[in-house]
């Protein structure tokens, strides 16, 4: 009846996951109760859960990422404490539990923090920057988000019901095969990634189509803001790489569920094939994450330097070059597997070539700052902090891309330090910069600068105190994924790293405080002009938060830095023009499709993990029924009458005129 599920799935003997699970459960129930009692449920349902507005969906993505950052961060704290005290002792975590933690940490950070964060920012900003009303497929967009949420939910369920994988975040066989991992951990891993992967693919298709086909009048390719370019590159990579992950996980699942022999040791299965496939996805994945961050830094650096981006065209070229080369270097992840010196040499060189376009970007940012009027607002701090950190990470990366060096450093703490260097310094700093930069656009008020700066400095220093020791430990020969150790020389570095983690955590807490303080003071921090940073691209041309339709008219773009040019001209002509003629606007209707789909996907995923076959069938029928019902709808759009558009737009115009006349007076 319930497949493999019985009471033994709940770890009554392990206090940590139980307590954590109970706290989370109580938290969720409390929030739910509050929502219901306060009567917010209809609001949540109509304005958020069923919303197909790209801005709302973007915000929900970022919210999901933030919550999961806390979860993944707790795992990191637990690991750092364990390694600090586990010198010649067992520490406080049993080995199989420690293994689940590092697997869950990596999986969550990559798939449920970094991915949703960048996809959320792209969703929020790209249609605005392109001067259009929505993404190409609004309802699908909602489906994509909710499927990602399903994946996150399943991973968290594994905390209390059953277990998570003990295989690392890429679930290498044969360890992940049934014979070595008979529990449900790997199944949790594979199904949650499979489901959220569909969501990611949907988001990728959506954003590629949006950038390629929905640009406002005059927005030629070479006038798109840099963030749109990196979005395009990143999503092209998603479309090309995520199907590889889907296929690979499908093969692993077939091995586990039906006794197939793709990656087994018996009957001719081939483990190296898994390595090749997973890294053919995995290496582009790194650039899927970091390219949007590059885009954010480009926007931030040029805005806060008061200058157009230096070498815009070379930046575009570098972006697309990275997009292509990132597909040709995957083998550097297993230099040590015996492919032979020739193959290793070729892939080693290819890996180093990718440093060239990346270097181009760094120089362009520096030249953008050079001679500019730089304002060190919080987003700019993150950008500068990123440049410093990323250069170090890049250098150590070149080091591990040299085959002989890699034989020394493979799977050492050095490697762990390197990729955190890149992924925290690149992706996470980028996400934070984007968060601070676009927050006023999304919510209509700025974030508190003082707490923002504190958050930056704690995170920045905490980061170095945590990860520089790991480089050292790696050089001293410490390998990764160690549950406990007996080498005295490593100990001080592990303690230092744990202290760094505490500083880093303080940074995260500052960020939470910043949010609370800013919401409290939102009246004082209100952004009435829609353009709090004196921005250069079109998202700043509309009010904050933008109306559902974003723009009353599709803007007509005449050059790079569309909004900057407009402002310059508006100052000369002081925004005087005949009252425009407004038209009705058609917008897509809200739809529960995404949420219902995710509901059935959750049921199906859970049932598959626990081999509850009738429930799988039920979920499948439900999903198909949702699809048909959605396809059956008759009215998928509603009309906002011209008068309403005019009313909303006039308010925005008034605010803007007063801004321009004030600026003109200076």
């Amino acid at each position, binding site marked *: 009846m319930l497949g493999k599920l019985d009471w033994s799935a709940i770890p009554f003997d392990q206090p940590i996951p139980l307590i954590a699970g109970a706290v989370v459960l109580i938290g969720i129930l409390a929030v739910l109760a509050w929502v219901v009692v306060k009567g917010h449920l209809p609001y949540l349902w109509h304005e958020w859960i069923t919303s197909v507005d790209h801005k709302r969906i973007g915000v929900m993505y970022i919210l999901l990422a933030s919550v999961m950052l806390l979860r993944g961060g707790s795992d990191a704290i637990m690991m750092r404490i364990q390694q600090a005290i586990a010198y010649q002792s067992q520490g406080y975590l049993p080995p199989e539990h420690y293994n689940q933690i590092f697997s869950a940490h990596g999986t969550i950070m990559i798939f449920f923090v970094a991915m949703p964060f960048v996809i959320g920012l792209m969703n929020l900003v790209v249609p605005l920057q392109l001067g259009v009303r929505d993404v190409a497929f609004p309802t699908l967009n909602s489906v994509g988000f909710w499927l990602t949420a399903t994946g996150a939910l399943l991973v968290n369920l594994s905390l209390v019901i059953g277990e998570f994988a003990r295989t690392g975040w890429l679930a290498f066989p044969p360890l992940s095969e049934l014979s070595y991992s008979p529990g449900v951990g790997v199944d949790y891993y594979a199904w949650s990634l499979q489901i959220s992967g569909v969501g990611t693919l949907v988001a990728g298709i959506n954003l590629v189509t949006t950038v390629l086909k*929905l640009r406002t009048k005059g927005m030629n390719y070479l006038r798109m803001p840099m963030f749109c370019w990196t979005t395009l590159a990143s999503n092209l990579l998603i479309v090309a790489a995520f199907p590889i992950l889907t296929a690979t996980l499908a093969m692993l699942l077939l091995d586990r569920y039906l006794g197939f022999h793709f990656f087994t040791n018996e009957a001719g299965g081939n483990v190296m094939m898994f390595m090749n496939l997973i890294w053919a996805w995995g290496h582009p994945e790194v650039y899927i994450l970091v390219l949007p961050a590059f885009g954010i830094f480009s926007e931030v650096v040029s805005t806060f330097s008061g200058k157009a981006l230096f070498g815009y065209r070379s930046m575009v070229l570098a972006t697309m070059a990275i997009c292509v080369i990132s597909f040709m270097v995957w083998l550097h992840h297993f230099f040590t597997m015996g492919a032979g010196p020739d193959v290793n040499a070729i892939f080693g060189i290819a890996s180093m070539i990718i440093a060239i376009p990346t270097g181009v970007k760094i120089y362009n940012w520096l030249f953008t700052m050079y001679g500019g009027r730089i304002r060190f607002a919080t987003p700019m701090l993150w950008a500068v902090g990123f440049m410093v950190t990323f250069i170090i990470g890049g250098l150590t990366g070149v080091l591990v891309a040299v085959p002989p060096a890699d034989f020394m450093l493979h799977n050492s703490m050095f490697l762990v330090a390197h990729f955190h260097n890149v992924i925290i310094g690149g992706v996470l700093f980028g996400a934070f910069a984007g968060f601070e930069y676009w927050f006023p656009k999304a919510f209509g008020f700025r974030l508190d600068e003082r707490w923002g700066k504190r958050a930056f400095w704690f995170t920045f220093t905490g980061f170095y105190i945590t990860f520089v020791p790991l480089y050292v430990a790696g050089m001293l020969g410490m390998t990764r994924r160690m549950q406990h150790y007996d080498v005295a020389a490593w100990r001080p570095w592990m303690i230092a790293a744990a202290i760094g983690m505490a500083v880093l955590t303080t940074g995260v807490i500052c960020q939470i405080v910043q949010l609370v303080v800013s919401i409290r003071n939102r009246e004082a921090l209100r952004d009435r002009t829609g353009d709090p940073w004196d921005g250069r691209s079109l998202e700043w041309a509309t009010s904050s938060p933008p109306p559902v339709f974003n723009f009353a008219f599709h803007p007509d773009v005449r050059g790079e830095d569309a909004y900057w040019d407009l402002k310059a001209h508006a100052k000369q002509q002081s925004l005087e023009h005949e009252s425009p003629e407004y038209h009705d606007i058609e917008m897509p209707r809200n739809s529960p499709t995404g949420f219902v789909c995710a509901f059935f996907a959750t049921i199906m995923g859970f049932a598959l993990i626990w081999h509850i076959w009738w429930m799988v069938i039920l979920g499948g029928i439900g999903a198909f029924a949702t699809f048909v019902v959605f396809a059956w709808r008759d009215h998928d759009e509603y009309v906002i009458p011209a008068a309403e558009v005019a009313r909303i737009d006039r308010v925005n115009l008034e605010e803007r005129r007063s801004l321009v006349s004030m600026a003109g007076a200076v």
Partner: protein
Amino acid sequence: MAVTATYGDAHADPHHVGRAAEHPGPASKRIVTAYGFWIFLLSDIVMFSCFFAAYAVLADQIAGGPKGSEIFDQRNVAIETVCLLLSSFTCGMASIAADVRSRFWFYLGMAVTCLLGLIFLVIEFKEFADLVSRGYGPSRSAFLTSFFSLVGCHGLHVSAGVLWLLTMMAQVFAKGFRADVLRRMMCFALFWHALDIIWVGVFSVVYLLGSGV
């Protein structure tokens, strides 16, 4: 946002692309839908290429089991291929019928497409069932694993296509040739033709090359 068309041409075009090359604005719904679906198809083809690659790697790993040449029945495969190619043709006819709003020819074209698809599936299912009953199931060897997965993945796509096809017929029946129904029909046709192309790949790589071994 009254920012349209208010400032003069005095503002130089930095890249001298000229007005002729100006981007005209967002594309129509039809184009956007077709474009998005194309991209989806490309990603689907990437997924298939992984299974092709796996087949290429594992084809010789027979682990003492049968080789391809010992189990493939060329006659069945030929019938399957004819069915699928014909169904692509009838699917095209149905699309044309939809374009000229002819219900009768639309239903006929779709019904025949469905029938051909089902025949294909039945033959494939019998082939699989037959192999399994002889003890040559997918867990017999890595070769058979990759064979069943590649061919089965295509078969799953055909099954999904048949479901979609029936939904399309019901939609035309209930709603007529509305613009959104026509857009979906266009996507369905793209999907069905893509399956055909993939089958040509399967046919050549698995059955033709395999029987030579």
